[in-house]
């Protein structure tokens, strides 16, 4: 499978945080959700792969080419949506476009106008007067108006109302339908990924915890509810994370059939992406590695 992005051994250190040997890859034609709690390292990873962070090590290849070899041509093929836009707030939408558009060799004014129309954005409006949702839509309009082959978005749905989030997801679906595209979508609101993601990458404390196809991941894991008295050390070790109360326990596991054999009277539930993400965090890294 062709890869739009391959990251290998990315390391970047700060005083209180570091990315440790981050490696993952994005296949063509996939919407990849990059998940993790606040401070897990999502933004640092995205900014590092875009060359915005200095002093990091590792290899970043876009479309099979090392970013250090041909940064300008590679960035010409990428659309970027930063959290909270990244605009000069005093400018109008058209003025901001006049600044950014000339940087791209394939800028398409017609696409830009049609996105503004689709999102009901007035080109004469000042950016500072836009709501958060409108700013994200404008950022998307800019990112998608130069025939980008890869869209990198940092927390685009954070702070958006449900309607705006649905509209954004619909735009992403339309974008992917063009074919030959890829999306890397960082978020801690995983319900959006339940709806749209094909692949999931999870990061925690600067380390990649897993990279897996979303459907496979969702099929593999189950939430199990049962009586507390049934638990013993052997059964506990089969859970990624486990919550116990006076009445019973709730646990996340990928060893479903094994547990079913040992405990026939249990309840099984299909987890959400958020359930799996939180179980990995609560279960700890050692446990997570065992379950991977």
């Amino acid at each position, binding site marked *: 499978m062709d890869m739009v992005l391959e990251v290998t051994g990315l390391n*970047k250190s700060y005083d209180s945080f570091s990315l440790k040997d981050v490696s993952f890859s994005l296949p063509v034609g996939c919407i990849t959700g990059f998940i993790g709690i606040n401070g897990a390292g999502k*933004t*640092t990873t995205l*900014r*590092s792969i*875009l*060359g*915005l*962070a*200095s*002093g990091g090590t590792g290899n970043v290849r876009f479309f099979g080419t090392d970013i250090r070899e041909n*940064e*300008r*041509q590679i*960035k*010409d093929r*990428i659309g*970027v949506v*930063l959290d*909270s*836009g*990244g*605009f*000069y*707030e*005093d*400018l109008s939408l058209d*003025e901001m476009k*006049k*600044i*950014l558009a*000339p*940087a*791209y*060799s394939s800028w398409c004014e017609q696409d830009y106008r049609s996105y503004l129309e689709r999102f009901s954005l007035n080109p004469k409006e000042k950016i500072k007067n836009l709501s958060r949702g409108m700013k994200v839509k404008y950022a998307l309009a800019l990112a998608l108006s130069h025939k980008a082959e890869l869209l990198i978005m940092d927390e685009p749905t954070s702070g958006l109302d449900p309607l705006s989030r649905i509209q954004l997801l619909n735009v992403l679906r339309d974008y992917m339908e063009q074919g030959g595209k890829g999306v890397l979508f960082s978020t801690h609101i995983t319900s959006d990924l339940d709806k749209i993601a094909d692949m999931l990458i999870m990061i925690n404390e600067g380390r990649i915890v897993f990279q897996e196809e979303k459907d496979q991941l969702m099929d593999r894991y189950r939430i199990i509810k049962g009586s507390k008295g049934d638990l013993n050390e052997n059964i506990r070790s089969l859970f990624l994370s486990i919550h116990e109360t006076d009445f019973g326990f709730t646990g996340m596991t990928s060893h479903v059939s094994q547990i079913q054999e040992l405990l026939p009277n249990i309840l099984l539930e299909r987890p959400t992406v958020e359930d799996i993400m939180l179980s990995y965090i609560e279960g700890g890294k050692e446990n997570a590695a065992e379950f991977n």
Partner: protein
Amino acid sequence: MLLNLIRKDFILVKKYVLFMAALCLLLPLFLLSRLPEFAGPLTYFISVVYSIFLLLQYVFLKEYQSPKASLLLCSSPYPRRLMVLGKYAFCLVIYTVCTLLYLLESLLLPGLGRFHGGMAVLVFSIITVFYGIYLPLQYRLGFEKTKFITMILIMACPFLAPFVLSKADMFKRLIQPLPPSLFYGMLLSVSFLMLIVSACLSVYFYEHTDLA
């Protein structure tokens, strides 16, 4: 791309561009009517220094207020090197426009005296020294710290001026034996050299800035 980055800075300060142009046009007229002995080269010098300083400060202020806009631009195909060189070109454009405005006025208002190339070279050298230091500092230390240093320098000017003026005769004695064309040629060469060194330093600092 460089032209687009120069245009970007002018878009950011568009509110003040006309104001500064008006100031450049009116300042010589004002001094000519009130203090004719100071009109002439001094108004040219003041208009260039003020225009560049105020417009450049305003651009950096806007960038300081919107740090994520720099992130977005650096995520685009604009190279960081050109983004820095755009600032130098922005200053040179303002210098050129101020010079042309003053030249025009000196042709229309004989009281301002005859404009000659030496004046343009001298003012160019002075602004090169100032901005040749100011811009790398800006990229190394950031807006807040540089603003503080600039403020100290401006406050120190009245104390440094008597010292510089006391040495004026010595400079004159050194310069006088040289033919004017050689002197201005040397001054221009040294200024360009300083500009190149300053631009290289600024590019180095900005390319190694961690924007994450």
